[in-house]
């Protein structure tokens, strides 16, 4: 009968093998926020800054390229939480992030107006493009602006893949439909609300030979795989984009420390000053040139301005 205990102990040891070193993980931390994270690699002192941002800034590789500079200068560690714009702002609202870097101008201004953020600063911009099948059944090529392009897609009842996820890109897509005076009906069959991220939406559009609105960075990063899609409206670079309504500005907002305890306010403001500084703006302007032959983001910060 002793065997059952042997077996249980054995099972527990097996499970514990993987958890060696987590003994203090399971016990309550000695103090709050401070050293609550026993991460594998945190040799530095200087605090942790939580940056809530959209997937495009992380997925494009921009943050990997510029953040080490901030960490070197301040000795702080930046923890990047890359989610949709809506969720990123929610994290700031709940005090779970110290600074947010997103691209949905109106929501950002509302966030500051509601007192969740201190102020908003311009950081950079890129743009949206309309991609679709090269034979362009709806005749989107040559449309005067994005709204006309959308109107042609609707008139042709050509398949259109929508993010459908309340992201910054989806918000922009809806604004263009509104501008075109069209209410796309998901029951119609041609308008497909996927509820997915940009990468998944592009993949789906590619498979279904559908049109979609994409941010240029994600499209360029995935271009090799998207053999049945091409840029039909928006030009080959941001500078070529004929429709200013497709510009996609990113803003940075330090979270208001008065609303929650434990916000790294000083570090957050240092981050805002850093990312809007001429040196970092120059790094942003260079990023992507080697790989895509064009920048993925264009600097936009004007020192000292807030909006």
């Amino acid at each position, binding site marked *: 009968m002793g065997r*059952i205990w042997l077996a249980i102990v054995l*099972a527990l040891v097996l499970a514990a093998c993987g958890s060696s070193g987590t003994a203090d993980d399971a016990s309550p931390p000695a103090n*709050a926020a401070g050293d609550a994270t026993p991460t594998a690699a945190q040799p530095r002192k200087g605090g942790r800054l939580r940056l809530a941002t959209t997937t495009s800034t992380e997925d494009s590789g921009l943050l990997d390229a510029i953040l080490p500079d901030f960490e070197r200068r301040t000795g702080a560690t930046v923890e990047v939480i890359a989610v949709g714009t809506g969720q990123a702002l929610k994290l700031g609202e709940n005090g779970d992030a110290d600074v947010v870097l997103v691209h949905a101008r109106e929501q950002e201004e509302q966030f500051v107006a509601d007192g969740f953020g201190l102020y908003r600063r311009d950081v950079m911009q890129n743009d949206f493009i309309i991609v679709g099948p090269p034979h362009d059944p709806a005749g989107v090529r040559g449309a005067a602006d994005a709204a006309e392009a959308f109107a042609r897609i609707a008139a042709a009842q050509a398949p259109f893949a929508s993010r459908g996820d309340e992201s910054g890109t989806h918000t922009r897509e809806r604004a263009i439909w509104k501008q075109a005076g069209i209410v796309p009906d998901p029951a119609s069959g041609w308008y497909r609300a996927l509820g997915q991220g940009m990468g998944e939406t592009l993949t789906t559009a590619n498979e279904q030979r559908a049109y979609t609105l994409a941010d240029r960075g994600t499209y360029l990063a995935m271009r090799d795989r998207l053999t049945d899609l091409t840029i039909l409206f928006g030009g080959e670079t941001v500078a070529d984009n004929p429709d200013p309504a497709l510009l996609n500005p990113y803003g940075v907002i330090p979270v208001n420390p008065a609303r929650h305890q434990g916000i790294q306010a000083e570090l957050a403001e240092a981050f805002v000053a850093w990312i809007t500084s001429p040196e970092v703006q120059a790094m942003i302007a260079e990023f992507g040139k080697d790989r895509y032959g064009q920048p993925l983001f264009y600097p936009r910060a004007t020192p000292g301005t807030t909006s």
Partner: protein
Amino acid sequence: MDDLLAGLAGALRLLLSGDAGVWEIVLLTLRVSGTALLISAVLGVPAGVVLALRSFPGQRLVTTVIYTGMGLPPVVAGLVVYLLLSRSGPLGDLGWLFTPRAMVVAQVLISLPLVVGLTMSAVEGITPELRLQLRALGATERQIAQAILWEARAGMLVALVAGFGSIISEVGAVLLVGGNIERSTRVLTTAIVLETRKGAFDQALALGFVLVGLTFVLNALALRLRGALLHPAG
């Protein structure tokens, strides 16, 4: 097909290249899910045994709650843990959100009902006749309980295997409460999501094979343990 083979080759390359980043992710995956399973086992196995062997008022309700928990969508578990651990939530002062601890809590919430429920059915599956026979042979209550637990050993192991399987491959909850922070809360599943989103399908697939390989090895070990338990002499 070529993509799949390339993914397999990529997985081997990732592991053999000694890429510290990948090993860090693998170790964190094992640490988080291993800790969560350990907690679930310590709490869940005794709970399942008690539920199977004793009867008390409200038992049916408790059982229903556990069965419902077995089907709890991981994202919902993650959302609940997020709201509890958020700075604006009741346990915000702990500072656990976006740390491995939060991921362990979410995974316990997901695996505990499975461990309790499956342990319970394993013990209940032992025929009532055994109990009568043992009593007729003059066994004490304690000896009877021990005999029943011994008979249910293989089923209990399955409970733990199922519990582990439900969390090591889970992505929705750990993404939400861990945040997929590089070198801090990035595990295999969230790394796969990130690579897929980036369009780096080859890297995503390679990591997928690493995860599958890992669960294969762990299940093979569990199966050996099961064999050793069922045929102690052989």
